[in-house]
């Protein structure tokens, strides 16, 4: 009869917190701590880009600059240094690569997916095999070839190894194959030419795949250091990413300005990501390949 003497348990605030929700709260805190580590380099970079040189490596670090030199630093990067040219070069190269990749891959992928022709199996096999070959393997003959024809240090040289994407052909072929044959047959009966079928039926249906691939291609080539390092020789053709090599040995540089230029180089892709988050993440999961 112990129940009688002891009063019924009044639920306290403590009982209401279930162990599960405590665990979840701790997980959330840990996740945000981890996220802080991921984001901190960006915050440090932006903060330093607004500081005078002597403050960048100041022992008592503060996120807010004591002397604001942001305007001078960014002005110097954009107007005194050729960063506008570097950014433009990156834009030209990435856009050129992407446009030609789409122009060569979409027709080929359509033919491989929907048309019958001899040699299609061999071609598709070659495409699959070529996916595994990175630029680092073919760079020597490509470089020698470009030297021989005297095209080193040109936009052509910077774009050439990438203007056919075997990966895009593979990806688009898989995508096009799922397009119903009955609709294509019906369109042919209605007098659509194959080109019209591609432009008016297949392309609109393939927009998600094309968008995802475009994001992937643009980011990969914007961030590429290896190939520009090999073929670019002059400042006129230098890409934004390659320009970071100038700070290889960090002696005698204006640190605030250095990090302003690092910000300028990485900002376009990061901002694009923040605006088109879904597209970027779909691009990664659909393509699943990086660099």
């Amino acid at each position, binding site marked *: 009869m112990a129940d009688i003497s002891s009063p019924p348990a009044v639920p306290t605030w403590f009982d209401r917190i279930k162990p599960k929700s405590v665990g979840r709260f701790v997980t959330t805190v840990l996740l*945000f701590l981890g996220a802080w580590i991921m984001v901190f380099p960006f915050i440090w970079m932006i903060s330093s880009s607004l500081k005078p040189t002597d403050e960048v490596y100041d022992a008592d670090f503060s996120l807010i600059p004591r002397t604001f030199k942001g305007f001078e630093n960014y002005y110097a990067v954009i107007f005194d240094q050729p960063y506008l040219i570097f950014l433009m070069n990156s834009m030209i190269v990435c856009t050129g690569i992407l446009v030609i990749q789409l122009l060569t891959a979409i027709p080929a992928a359509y033919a491989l997916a929907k048309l019958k022709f001899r040699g299609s199996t061999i071609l598709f096999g070659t495409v699959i095999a070529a996916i595994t070959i990175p630029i680092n393997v073919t760079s020597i003959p490509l470089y020698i070839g470009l030297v021989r024809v005297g095209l080193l240090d040109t936009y052509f040289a910077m774009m050439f190894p990438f203007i056919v994407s075997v990966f895009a052909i593979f990806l688009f072929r898989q995508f096009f194959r799922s397009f119903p044959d009955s609709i294509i047959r019906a369109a042919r009966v209605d007098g659509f030419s194959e080109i019209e079928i591609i432009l008016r039926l297949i392309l609109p249906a393939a927009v998600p795949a094309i968008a995802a691939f475009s994001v992937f291609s643009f980011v990969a080539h914007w961030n590429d250091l290896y190939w520009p390092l090999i073929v670019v020789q002059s400042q006129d053709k230098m890409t934004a990413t390659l320009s*970071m090599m100038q700070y290889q040995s960090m002696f005698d540089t204006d640190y605030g300005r250095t990090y302003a230029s690092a910000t300028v180089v990485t900002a376009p892709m990061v901002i694009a990501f923040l605006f088109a988050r879904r597209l970027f993440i779909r691009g990664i999961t659909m393509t699943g390949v990086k660099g």
Partner: protein
Amino acid sequence: MAVSKLQRAQTRLAYLLVLPATLLILAIYIVPIIFVFLGSLTDYTLVSDHYAFVGFENYQKMFEDEAFSNALNNTFFYALLFLPGAFIISLVIAIAIQEQKQFRSVLEVLYFLPVTSTLAAMALVWSALMDSGQGVINNTLQTIGLARVNWFGNEDIVLVSLAIISLWSVIGFNMVLFLAGLTAIPKNLYEAAAIDGADHPLDKFFRVTWPMLGPTAMFVAVTSSITAFKLFDTVAILTQGGPDRASEVFLYLAFLEGFEYFNMGYSAALSLFFLGIIFLFALVQALFSDRNVQY
């Protein structure tokens, strides 16, 4: 008659459609690969027009070359540091984020941010954070009573430093792949496991999540291994292989031999070795992964 005419017109069109891509694949992949192989049998250097066939001498040299074994050792040691983190940390974060409700998309964005950033630029930031004198990391270590670390000047530590930077840049990428795999696991499997008595999170993980995640895990493991073998940007920007060749990894050595010393023949042999390793990874993936899984 009409059908076969249409058929022929279609075939002709098909050839027309694949022609540009085919020619470019020949020029960008097939011909260069043939030349890499032929070049690897010569002592070709860009600086002289005279060269001779030397048979498999370049390959022989490779296995006697101290720089080669050094680069291979460095690459494997780096991969050993990088791969477990790239796999486990990403998986843990993905599982934790998947259970989040209101913060999921914010956290996803924050963790993914390094993936889209330009590694060459962020490497400069990391070199400042890891500066042995006034870097934020060393100052923090000192504040909490730990010893300062010479991140880039110490031969034994430089690969650890590079692995940390690579982890930072790749975790969000692998996390997104794992999240895609996790989202595809049917909820009722967890319910069924709960009925069978798998209540503990670890039980759930080993009975449901891990077996269902197999293909994704394989994919992440293989792509991360290839990424590890392709380490280049941070080495080129931050260490140039130093100190004392302690961070001279495979791809950087091949780059030096080809484009700094112009030993094209030898570098071609190194490139083919590199391709062999990549093929090996691709083969492993093809053998062990489920072909029907679409990401």
